[in-house]
């Protein structure tokens, strides 16, 4: 069985590490990108099965990355979970408007994240 690929996008190494640890028991192949541009590039190259996307990042914010991923054929249908500190209704709405599949709040709960990832990947 082929390993499912997950792209982790965050400018914080702490967050990337937390996500890696949280998803480690899922047996996924994990990739990381530190900003929006790198995220788009890696998504095009690796065609991940799912993307975890931070919002506040240098160069391009997560909402814009999400919009661009949805606009491109090969990445159009990849499930995207936005991981954000912004829990206000307006921001969540903005996230879903940009095309995200799910919206998770920081501080990250690893157990909850793994459950949502498994659910979206049908594991």
């Amino acid at each position, binding site marked *: 069985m082929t390993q499912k690929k997950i792209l982790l996008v965050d400018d914080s*190494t*702490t967050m990337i*590490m*937390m996500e890696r*640890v949280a998803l480690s028991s899922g047996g996924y192949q994990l990739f990381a990108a530190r900003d929006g541009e790198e995220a788009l590039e890696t998504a095009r190259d690796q065609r991940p099965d799912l993307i975890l996307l931070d919002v506040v990042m240098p160069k391009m914010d997560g909402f814009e990355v999400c919009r661009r991923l949805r606009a491109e054929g090969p990445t159009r249908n990849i499930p995207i979970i936005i991981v954000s*500190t912004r829990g206000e209704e307006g921001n969540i709405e903005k996230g879903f408007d940009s095309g995200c599949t799910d919206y998770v709040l*920081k*501080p990250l709960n*690893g*157990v909850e994240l793994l459950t949502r990832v498994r659910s979206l990947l049908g594991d």
Partner: protein
Amino acid sequence: MSGESDREGPSDYVFRVREQTRQHLRDLLSENEKLRRSTAALESERNRLLAEKMALQEKLLNLREEYDHFQREQMDLHRRLAETEEESRQFALQSLEIEQQNNNLANLYVAGYQLHGTLDHDEVVAAIKEIVINLIGCEEFGVYEMDEEGRALRLTGFLGIDPAIYATVPLGSGLIGRAAATGARYLLGEPPGIPAPREAHLTACIPLKLGETVLGALAIFRLLAHKHGLEPVDHELFDLLATHAATALYVSRLHRERVAASRLS
């Protein structure tokens, strides 16, 4: 005929009557025998039915006992099923709790790893900031370090607060200064001292200590809007930050001084 009967003598009459009587008696005896047989048959049938009734009663009794037994067994099975379900629920809860604890431990590991992963002072401060944002869930905080003379705290890292207002805290002044002076953690809701006006939104102040020596403090102001208070894991993170952030800051300062000294020499 009538002539003959007319001629019947008394002895004939007696004979005839006797014969008739005998015949009648025979008939009666025969009928009696039939009745006796019939009675015997009925008696036998009655006995058979009685036996059958008793057998059925016994069978019914057995069935009742069996029914009671099955009912008891069913109740027992229901009880065991409920017990098993409860056990299974407890296991699921325990499993979730263990997963949550693992996750918390993993977060503590990540925090420790990030703090001690560099000797660069700015990177240590950045690591503290990332931990506060991503693990505690706060975007209004200040990282303070004790000045050379040990008289005041100086802001070396912050997010979401005005650095001009929070730049320096004299030791012993307000909640932050007092936490640094005494080495005792301040937590919102615990009997406080008198907050300075700028500390109105202070949620916690963690003195950063090496042993009993306070090297700085972490002032946590408002938590993220969706976070409704500190959780047990936050206190564990505070414990970790109190010592490990202090160690990391101290080592990075020593390293900076060593590098500066080696440049001079």
